[in-house]
C-alpha cells in the first residue's frame, strides 16, 4: 500500500459519499455526476488492488494480516458496482443516498486497510 495514495483514495471516497448523500437527501435521482463519482471510487480501488499485488515485490509488505487486508479490499471493490447496479434498477432519491452509503463504506474500509498495512503489528 502506498500511503499517500490511500489517503487520496480515502479523500475521494468520503467526498463522493458526502456528495451523493447531500444530493440524495435533496431529492436528486442518480445522475452522471453521482454515478461518475462512484466510478472514480471504484477505479481507485482497482488501482489499489494492483498496488497491493505489486507492493510486496518491492519490499513494501503489510505489517498486519494480509488476509484481513485482502478481505477488506475485495469487499470494498464489490460495493460501488452493487450500489450502482441497484441505482440503475430503481432510480429515485434513495438510490443516490445508497450510492453515498457505499462510497462512505469504502472510505471506512480504506482507512482500516491503511491501518492493517501500516500500524496493525508495529
Amino acid at each position, binding site marked *: 500500500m502506498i500511503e499517500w495514495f490511500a489517503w487520496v483514495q480515502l479523500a475521494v471516497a468520503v467526498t463522493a459519499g458526502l456528495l451523493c448523500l447531500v444530493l440524495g437527501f435533496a431529492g436528486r435521482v442518480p445522475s452522471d455526476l453521482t454515478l461518475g463519482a462512484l466510478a472514480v471510487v471504484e477505479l481507485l480501488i482497482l488501482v489499489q488492488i494492483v498496488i497491493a499485488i505489486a507492493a510486496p515485490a518491492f519490499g513494501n509488505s503489510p505489517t498486519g*494480516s494480509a488476509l484481513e487486508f485482502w*478481505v477488506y479490499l475485495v469487499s470494498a471493490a464489490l460495493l460501488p458496482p452493487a450500489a450502482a447496479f441497484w441505482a440503475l434498477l*430503481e432510480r*429515485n432519491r434513495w438510490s443516490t*443516498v445508497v450510492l453515498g*452509503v457505499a462510497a462512505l463504506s469504502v472510505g471506512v474500509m480504506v482507512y482500516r486497510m491503511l491501518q492493517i498495512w501500516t500500524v496493525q503489528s508495529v
Partner: protein
Amino acid sequence: MESLQSAPPETRTPTTMSGIGRVLVAVYGVLALAALGRSFVQIVSKYEEAPLAYALSALAAVVYVVATIALVRPGVVWYRVAWATIAFEFTGVIVVGTLSIVDPALFPHDTVWSWFGRGYLFIPLVLPVLGMWWLAKHRPTAGAE
C-alpha cells in the same frame, strides 16, 4: 395474520423495499458483508484463541445476511423472518454489549456486538431499532405501497 387470507403471494407488492427502505437494506448489506468478512478472517487465522467470541461473530454475520435477504424479499414469511432476525440481533447487541462492559473477561476478543458495536460505529445498535421501526410501518398487506 389477516393478510394471509386477503392476498395470495403473487398479487402482493413485488418489492417490500422501496424508498428509504433501500437505504436500510444497503446499510444492512454492508454490515452483513463486513461482519462476514471479519468473522471469516477471525476463524481462519485465530479461531482457537477465542472460539466463543468468533463463533458468535460468525453466527451474527450469518444472521445479518439472512436479515438483509429477508428485508428485500416480499411476502409474509420473509416479513416474519426479518422480524425474527432483527429481534435476534437486537437481543444480541444488548446482551453481549452489556456483558462485554460488565464483565470484559467473558469476551476478551472483539465480536461485532462488543461494547454495543463500538467497532462498527455503533451501527449494530442503531440498525435493529431502525429495522424494527421500518417493519412495523410496512406490514405486507395486499395492495400496500
